[in-house]
């Protein structure tokens, strides 16, 4: 299909329909959408290259917001500018909104009395627990490496347990991050000076080996 020759309106319609289809069919979070996005936008329509998709994946996980909508907005932006971003986001929202609305109006309290239905819910809750745990541990392994980072995560966790508002925690994490990066670059600069230029200073992140067992906080 020659996408470049499509009129503007058809392009927006294509974006809307593609994301409608993606969120209507894919069960699970934003990252589960990626293979389908690749199939539609890279393989079928050739609107993105694989490298662009990889860049986008990294970007959607760093900017705030849920990953699914982030991906829709960035692809929409790339293909059709601001109207494209709006069309893609609208397409991504419509199916889950409709489905959940129907379920919510049928069961407003989600407090089943039936024993088997209770069992079904308990089973799914247990599976979701496992999924969040695995996701959390993967994130932990990827982004927590130095002892100071372990300590920071522990402190944030303890504060969350003590009912400090999570919103406040995230806001407090920003100045902490600035201090940390400033301290890290200063330490790196010093290490570079003391090495007499003979050896290249190792980057701070890799100077401490990531511990294998420490990653699985339970």
């Amino acid at each position, binding site marked *: 299909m020659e996408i470049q020759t499509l009129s503007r309106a058809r392009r927006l319609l294509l974006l809307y329909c593609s994301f409608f289809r993606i969120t209507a069919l894919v069960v699970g979070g934003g990252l589960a959408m990626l293979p389908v996005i690749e199939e539609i936008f890279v393989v079928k329509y050739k609107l993105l290259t694989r490298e662009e998709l990889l860049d986008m994946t990294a970007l959607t996980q760093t900017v705030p917001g*849920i990953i699914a909508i982030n991906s829709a907005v960035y692809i929409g932006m790339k293909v059709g500018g601001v109207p494209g*971003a709006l069309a893609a986001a609208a397409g991504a929202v419509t199916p889950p909104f409709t489905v959940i609305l129907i379920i919510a109006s049928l069961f*407003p309290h989600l407090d089943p009395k039936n024993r*088997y239905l209770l069992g079904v819910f308990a089973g799914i*809750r247990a*599976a979701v627990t496992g999924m969040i745990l695995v996701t959390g541990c993967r994130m932990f392994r990827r982004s927590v490496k130095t002892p100071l980072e372990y300590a920071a995560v522990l402190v944030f966790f303890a504060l969350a347990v003590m*009912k400090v508002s999570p919103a406040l925690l*995230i806001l407090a*994490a920003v100045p902490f991050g600035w201090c940390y990066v400033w301290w890290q670059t200063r330490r790196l600069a010093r290490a570079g000076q003391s090495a007499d230029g003979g050896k290249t200073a190792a980057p701070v992140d890799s100077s401490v080996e990531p511990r294998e067992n420490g990653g699985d906080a339970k």
Partner: protein
Amino acid sequence: MNHCLVLFFQFCKFSVLCFGGGYMLIPLLTAQYVDQEQVLTMSEFGNLCSVAQVTPGPVGLNTATYVGYVNEGFFGALAASLGLIAPTVLIGCSAAAGINRWKDTFLVKGMLKGTRLAAVALIMFAVTIFFGMSVFTRTIPWESFGALFKFERPVLPEGFRVSPAGVLICGATIVLMLKTKLPSTVLLLGAAAAGAVLSFWF
């Protein structure tokens, strides 16, 4: 109408604070709607997350729609969903190109580093919230563990015990996720069936 506006801005706030994917919404939403406003009970919230997980669509968006509906009906659901996507659209349209240019500046790097660490901690906290709804029979009584600091034996509240079915299903899910490449839909359906069957015994 006023309440819908409040919902809209609350979800705008959650969206801006949501670093690291939809699971980050769990601590944010429980703090707001279970602990503070008490429009939902913890078990309702757990069931809501289960429904959000097994229905198609991103988990964060499903949860938002449901919470909005429970609060204010149809317009509440609309306000919550729009609130969740509005900041993303704004950020995406203005900064999609910019963030790559600023990625290596001190301000952006520091912010990403700090929020990443907080996000890891909060997702671990979300795990403990879910532990209280599956592996254990009620929310984890953190305040009882304060006794450990005084070298005393913690007094666990009535009805707090390990749920065998929860441990089995949760453990099986973790093993299957790490060892096989089964799609999460299969895992969830299997867990639902296992939960129904295990409710015979436990």
